[in-house]
C-alpha cells in the first residue's frame, strides 16, 4: 500500500503532475470543471464595501468608493480569472521559465531565459519599480493591486488552483510590485526589443554600401506617414522648418565614422515576431454621421490563450473607465471613459543598440573607453531548472549596458553590450492611470509626458470634439544612421548623449483632413528634423488612409475597416507577376492563373485566389533571397516585402535573382516568376489536393495557442480572412488581439471583441468563448455603466465585497 501511495504521489515526469493528486476527484483536475468559484463576500484589506456587477460575458464592472479599493478589486478579480497566465508571463519576462518546464529541447527554454536576463529585463523592471514607488499616486495603486492579487492567492487551496499549476505541478508565488513592473517589460520586449544592428552590420560587411542601400532603404517606395506630409512652401528657403517647434540641433556625427566591418555569426538571435503591429484611428465629428468623433483601435499581437487582454470597467469617485486591461498591470490600457477614448499602436522605432566591447584581456575585468581602461562588474545569474541541476550564467556589465552576446552566449566572437530604452527607469503606469481619468486633450497630453517605452502611437478622441495622435516614447537624438549598425563601445560619441524633447515627438491635433490614424508606418515625412530608424509597415497605412478619406463615416464603417481584407501588396505586384507569366499554361496551372486574373485582391476566408497568390509570392520571395542569405550562414535580415516589390518592378535583371546553386545559368525576373509559380501550384496540389480545397483559411491556419503550447487548450484553423500587411492583420499566429470601436457623445457607445474569453480556465466553456464571434466579425456591445443600477433589465450577477479586517 505504501509503495502504491509513493508511486501515485510522485510526479511522472520532470514537469508534470503526480497521478494520485491530479486524478483525485476531490481536489485534482476534476475540480477545474466547475465554473469559477463564487467570490467570497469578505476580503481582508478592503477599506469600504465594493459592488461588482458581472455582465453576461463575465466582464466585471467594479464600483468602489475609493481608488485603492478599486485597484485592489481589479487585482483580486483578474487573479481569479487569470492567475496562472499573469504569473507565467512574468516568469517569461524575468527569465524563469526553466523553473517550470526545464531546459527545453536543445536548451531552447534555457536560452530564452538567459536572453531575457542578459537583455536587462530584471534590471529594467527594478529601475521602473523604483520610479513607480517614488510617485505617491502610482505607489498606492500598485500596492493595492498587489494586495488584491495576494488576497486571492491566499484563499487558494489545491482544489481551486488553476489547472496549469496542477498539470505542471507547482504553486503560485506571492505577487509583488516588481512583478507588475516585469509584466510591463514583457510588453516592452514584445514591442520594442527589435534591433537589426547585428544583421545590418553583417549585410554591410558582406555586400558593401551600394547593395546594402538597395536592400535596406530607410523609406519605402510609397507611404502615407502618421503626420500628413508637409507641403514645402513654393517660395522661400527650402530648408525652412515646417514643424511648429524649434528643433534641437542633431549631435555632430563622429569624425571619420564608418560602420564596423564585422562578420557576426550567432546561432541565437531570437527576436519578437515582426507581424506584431496594430491599427488605430479617430474620425472627427465633421466626417462622422453622429457629428461627434469616432475612435477605433485594434492591437495585433501574438494570438494566445488565455488572451493577453482582460475586459473590465473601473468606477470610483473621479474615474469611470471601460476597456482592455493587461492581466498583471492596474488600470485600463486601451479604452474609453465619459469624456475621451484612446488606443495604441506600436511606434516601431529603434530603441535598442548594440556596442562592441574591447576587453583588455581574457579575464574581462577591464574594457576600453575613450583611451582608458574601465572596470567591469560581473553578475552571476542563477537558473533553477525543473528536473535538473542549477545553471549559472556570468554576465558582464559595462556602463553602457550588460554584455548580451559573447563567447558564452550566442557564440559571438565579438562581445556586444546592449543598451535598450526599457532598461531605463520609467513610470508607464502613471500614464495609464492618468489616461483613465483624462477629461480632455490637455489631460491626455499631460498623461503622455510620463511615458517612455515601448513607444506607441496614442490616438485620442474626446466628446468635446477633439481628435489627436501623438507618437510617444523616449527617443535618442541621434546622428544620421546612429544605431543602424553595431556601435563602438570605446567611443563616447557613439553613446546616447541627448534625447529628443518630448514636445517634439510627432503629433497632430484636429488635422484638416478630418481624421488621424496610424498603422505602424513612418511617423513623419523626411522633413521631420530628427533622425530615426526602425521597422515600419508600408501597406496598411495606405489602405487605411484611403478608406478614411471617405465622408459620412459610421461605427459600422469603423468595424468594416478593422475587418477590411483588401491586399494592397497583392494589388501592387500581382499585375506584374501575371504579365511575366507564360501564356501557354495548361490544366491546374491554367485554372490557377484564371483564378488570379479574376481576383479582387480580397483575402476572404473561403477564397482560393489568396492561397494561390500567397504561395506563389512566398516561393518567389524565397527564390530571390534564400540562396544568397542561407549560404552566408550569418544572422541577416531578409529585405522587406515592399523593398522586394520595388526591386522587382524596377529591374528585370538583378544579381540576387540569379540562383547561386545553378552554375553556368543566370536567372532573371521572368525565370523566377515562372519557376516559383509552377513550384507553388505543385506544392498546393500535393498538400491540399484539388484546387477547390485550397481555401485561404485552411491554408493560412490561423491559430490561438495556449501559452504553454498545450494543444488541447488551443484552437487551430480558425475560419477567418486577412493576413499580414492587410488591415485585418490576421496571420497564422498573430492578429487583432482586441478590436474596439467607440462613438463619443453624451454617453459613449462602444463595441469590442477579442479572441479568447474572460476566464483563463481551459475547463470552462467560456475559455475560448469569444473566438467564433471574433472570427466571424461580430462585436459585443460594451456595457458602459454609470452606477450599479444601470444594469437593471440586463442578464447580470451582482456581488458585494466588504472589508474583513479581523
Amino acid at each position, binding site marked *: 500500500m505504501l509503495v502504491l*501511495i509513493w508511486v*501515485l504521489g510522485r510526479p511522472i515526469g520532470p514537469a508534470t503532475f503526480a497521478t494520485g493528486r491530479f*486524478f483525485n*476527484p476531490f481536489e485534482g483536475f*476534476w475540480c*477545474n*470543471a466547475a465554473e469559477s468559484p463564487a467570490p467570497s463576500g469578505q476580503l481582508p484589506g478592503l477599506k469600504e464595501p465594493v459592488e461588482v456587477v458581472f455582465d453576461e460575458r463575465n466582464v466585471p464592472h467594479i464600483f468602489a468608493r475609493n481608488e485603492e479599493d478599486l485597484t485592489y478589486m481589479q487585482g483580486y478579480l483578474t487573479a481569479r480569472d487569470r492567475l496562472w497566465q499573469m504569473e507565467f508571463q512574468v516568469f517569461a519576462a524575468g527569465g524563469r521559465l526553466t523553473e517550470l518546464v526545464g531546459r527545453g529541447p536543445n536548451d531552447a527554454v534555457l536560452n530564452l531565459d538567459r536572453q531575457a536576463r542578459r537583455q536587462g529585463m530584471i534590471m529594467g523592471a527594478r529601475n521602473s519599480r523604483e520610479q513607480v514607488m517614488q510617485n505617491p499616486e502610482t505607489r498606492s495603486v500598485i500596492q493595492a493591486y498587489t494586495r488584491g492579487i495576494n488576497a486571492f492567492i491566499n484563499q487558494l487551496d489545491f482544489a481551486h488552483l488553476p489547472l496549469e499549476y496542477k498539470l505542471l505541478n507547482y504553486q503560485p508565488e506571492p505577487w509583488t510590485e516588481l512583478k507588475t513592473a516585469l509584466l510591463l517589460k514583457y510588453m516592452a520586449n514584445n514591442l520594442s526589443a527589435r534591433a537589426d544592428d547585428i544583421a545590418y552590420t553583417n549585410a554591410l560587411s558582406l555586400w558593401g554600401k551600394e547593395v546594402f542601400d538597395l536592400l535596406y532603404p530607410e523609406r519605402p517606395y510609397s507611404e502615407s506617414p502618421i503626420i500628413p506630409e508637409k507641403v514645402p512652401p513654393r517660395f522661400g528657403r527650402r530648408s525652412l522648418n515646417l514643424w511648429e517647434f524649434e528643433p534641437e540641433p542633431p549631435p555632430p556625427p563622429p569624425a571619420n565614422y564608418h560602420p564596423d566591418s564585422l562578420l557576426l555569426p550567432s546561432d541565437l538571435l531570437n527576436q519578437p515576431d515582426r507581424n506584431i503591429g496594430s491599427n488605430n484611428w479617430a474620425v472627427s465629428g465633421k466626417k462622422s454621421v453622429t457629428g461627434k468623433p469616432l475612435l477605433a483601435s485594434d492591437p495585433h499581437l501574438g494570438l494566445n490563450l488565455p488572451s493577453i487582454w482582460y475586459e473590465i470597467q473601473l468606477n470610483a469617485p473621479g474615474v469611470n473607465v471601460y476597456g482592455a486591461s493587461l492581466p498583471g498591470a492596474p488600470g485600463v490600457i486601451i479604452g474609453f471613459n465619459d469624456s475621451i477614448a484612446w488606443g495604441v499602436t506600436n511606434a516601431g522605432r529603434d530603441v535598442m543598440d548594440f556596442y562592441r566591447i574591447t576587453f583588455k584581456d581574457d579575464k574581462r575585468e577591464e574594457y576600453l573607453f575613450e583611451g582608458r581602461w574601465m572596470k567591469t562588474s560581473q553578475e552571476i545569474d542563477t537558473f533553477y531548472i525543473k528536473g535538473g541541476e542549477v545553471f549559472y550564467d556570468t554576465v558582464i556589465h559595462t556602463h553602457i549596458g550588460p554584455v548580451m552576446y559573447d563567447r558564452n552566449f550566442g557564440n559571438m566572437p565579438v562581445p556586444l553590450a546592449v543598451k535598450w530604452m526599457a532598461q531605463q527607469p520609467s513610470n508607464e503606469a502613471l500614464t495609464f492611470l492618468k489616461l483613465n481619468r483624462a477629461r480632455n486633450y490637455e489631460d491626455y497630453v499631460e498623461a503622455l509626458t510620463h511615458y517612455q517605452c515601448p513607444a506607441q502611437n496614442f490616438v485620442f478622441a474626446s466628446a468635446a470634439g477633439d481628435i489627436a495622435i501623438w507618437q510617444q516614447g523616449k527617443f535618442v537624438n541621434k546622428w544620421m544612421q546612429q544605431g543602424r549598425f553595431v556601435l563602438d563601445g570605446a567611443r563616447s560619441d557613439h553613446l546616447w548623449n541627448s534625447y529628443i524633447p518630448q514636445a517634439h515627438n510627432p503629433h497632430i491635433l484636429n488635422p484638416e483632413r478630418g481624421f488621424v490614424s496610424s498603422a505602424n508606418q513612418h511617423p513623419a515625412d523626411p522633413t521631420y528634423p530628427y533622425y530615426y530608424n526602425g521597422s515600419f509597415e508600408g501597406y496598411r497605412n495606405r489602405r487605411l488612409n484611403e478608406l478614411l478619406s471617405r465622408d459620412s463615416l459610421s461605427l459600422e464603417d469603423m468595424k468594416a475597416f478593422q475587418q477590411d481584407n483588401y491586399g494592397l501588396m497583392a494589388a501592387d505586384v500581382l499585375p506584374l507577376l501575371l504579365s511575366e507569366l507564360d501564356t501557354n499554361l495548361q490544366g491546374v496551372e491554367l485554372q490557377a492563373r484564371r483564378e488570379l486574373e479574376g481576383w479582387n485582391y480580397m483575402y476572404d476566408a473561403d477564397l482560393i485566389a489568396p492561397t494561390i497568390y500567397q504561395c506563389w509570392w512566398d516561393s518567389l520571395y524565397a527564390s530571390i533571397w534564400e540562396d544568397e542569405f542561407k549560404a552566408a550562414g550569418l544572422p541577416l535580415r531578409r529585405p522587406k516585402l515592399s523593398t522586394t516589390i520595388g526591386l522587382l518592378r524596377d529591374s528585370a535583371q538583378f544579381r540576387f535573382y540569379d540562383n547561386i546553386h545553378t552554375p553556368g545559368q543566370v536567372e532573371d525576373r521572368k525565370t523566377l516568376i515562372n519557376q516559383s509559380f509552377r513550384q507553388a501550384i505543385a506544392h498546393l496540389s500535393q498538400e491540399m489536393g484539388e484546387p477547390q480545397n485550397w481555401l485561404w483559411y485552411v491554408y493560412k491556419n490561423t491559430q490561438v495557442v495556449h501559452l504553454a503550447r498545450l*494543444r*488541447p487548450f488551443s484552437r487551430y484553423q480558425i475560419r477567418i480572412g486577412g493576413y499580414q500587411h492587410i488591415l485585418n492583420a490576421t496571420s497564422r499566429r498573430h492578429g487583432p488581439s482586441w478590436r474596439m470601436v467607440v462613438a463619443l457623445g453624451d454617453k459613449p457607445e462602444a463595441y469590442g471583441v477579442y479572441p479568447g474569453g474572460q476566464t483563463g480556465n481551459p475547463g470552462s*466553456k467560456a475559455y475560448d468563448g469569444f473566438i467564433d464571434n471574433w472570427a466571424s466579425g461580430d462585436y459585443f456591445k460594451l456595457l458602459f455603466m454609470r452606477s450599479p443600477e444601470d444594469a437593471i433589465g440586463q442578464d447580470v450577477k451582482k456581488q458585494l465585497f466588504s472589508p474583513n479586517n479581523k
Partner: protein
Amino acid sequence: MKFLFRFLLILILGFFLMKVLPFWSAALAAFVVGLGLSEKRKRRMFAKKQAYPFSFWAGFLAMFLLWGGMAVIKDQQNGGLLSAKIAQLITRSAEADPSGSWTMILAAALIGGLLGGFGSLSGNLLGEAIKH
C-alpha cells in the same frame, strides 16, 4: 452482509476523510476499516485464502465507486469538456475525442479502487498480525 457493511463503512469514512485530506486518505480510510474489522486468523487454511480477496474487493469497490462517482459528478458540470481535453493531453492525440472523458473517469476510479483495495488489505493484514 459482512461485505456490504465493510464496503459501506469504507465508502462513508472515505468520503469524509477525502474532503479534508489528500488522495492517500482513500487508502487510509480503507486501512482503518480493514484494521478495525480484521478477524483473528481462522484455523482452517481455506478461510484465510478467502479473507484477503474479501477485504481487498470491499476496499476496491468502495473507492472505485467513490472516485468514479465523484468524477462523474464533477465532469457533468461542463459536459465532459475538460476531461476530454485532459485525455487528449495525456494521449498526445491531435484531435479531442469525447470518449476520452470516460477513459479519464475509469482511470480515476481505478486509481481510487487500487488505493482502497490495497489499503483495506494492508489494514486487514496488520490487524491479523497484531491479534495473532
